[in-house]
């Protein structure tokens, strides 16, 4: 769908623009990631509100995580999460083997050090969505080999 291309490009520009501004200014990479994450947070909150307007109440945390993996991810990235693991004590690992925002970048280990920048927004997205569903969380991302990420 054409919208996807638009969002991908906008996201890439955002990352590039923020880092470019940082280089000219203070040169603190950490703050850029925080800014991206907080933008994702806002968007996630808004999106989840719109998506769950008509759905039934969630039974428990696992139900919410399944919703995120299936419906939320499908609406945002046009595919489902490939693998969801949990230790039933509050830690969930979502694995996406072909993460949309990274597929255009590389298919292996090249540019691995730049990957986290592109995941910050999505982490914020998930955190915002969960927060509006009543769950406080910390979301981190890990990339070992593009375009898969956890």
């Amino acid at each position: 769908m054409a919208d996807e291309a638009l969002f991908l490009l906008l996201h890439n520009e955002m990352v590039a623009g923020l880092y470019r501004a940082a280089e000219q200014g203070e040169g603190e990479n950490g703050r850029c990631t925080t800014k991206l994450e907080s933008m994702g947070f806002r968007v996630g909150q808004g999106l989840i509100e719109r998506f769950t307007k008509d759905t039934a109440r969630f039974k428990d945390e696992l139900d919410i995580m399944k919703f995120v993996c299936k419906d939320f991810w499908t609406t945002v990235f046009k595919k489902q999460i490939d693998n969801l693991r949990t230790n039933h004590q509050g830690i969930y690992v979502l694995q996406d083997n072909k993460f949309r925002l990274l597929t255009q970048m590389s298919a292996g280990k090249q540019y691995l050090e730049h990957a986290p920048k592109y995941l910050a927004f999505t982490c914020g997205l998930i955190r915002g969505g969960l927060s509006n569903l009543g769950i406080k969380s910390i979301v981190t991302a890990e990339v070992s080999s593009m375009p898969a990420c956890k």
Partner: protein
Amino acid sequence: SRELFVLTYGALVAQLCKDYEKDEDVNTCLDRMGYGIGVRLIDDFLARSAVRKCRSYSETAGMIAQVAFKMYLGVTPSVSCSSAAGNEFSLILDKNPLVDFVEELPAERASLCYCNLLCGVIRGALEMVHLAAEVTFLQDRLKGDAVTEIGITFLRKAEDRKHKRN
């Protein structure tokens, strides 16, 4: 989904407003980002639409309005030519999806061009097909005008001056 794009754009503008105090800086930043998007979007557009080469400025403006806007934003602005020389056009949008979730501009940001990204995108895309243009907002609904109007002025390339325009 388009909502994701619109919401992300809103968050981006909000962040830029926090980072830059002056409206002009935010506008410039949005324009530059739009330019970066436009130079890449044109490839995507040409691949998806497979249109034939445009042979005149008015065909190009029409293509932008009827095909590109429809493809990416789902709206079709109306095109009108606003100069005798045939190189100035305006696209009139009566529905702008980018501002779906925006009610009004905050008081201290009165000269913010919220959709300045669009101008940059059009400018970047045109440049990649070797058409230099200036794109600005002539009217903006968020600032109280009746409609949103984008003006595209095609700048003459150096070699055009030798030929007579049809």
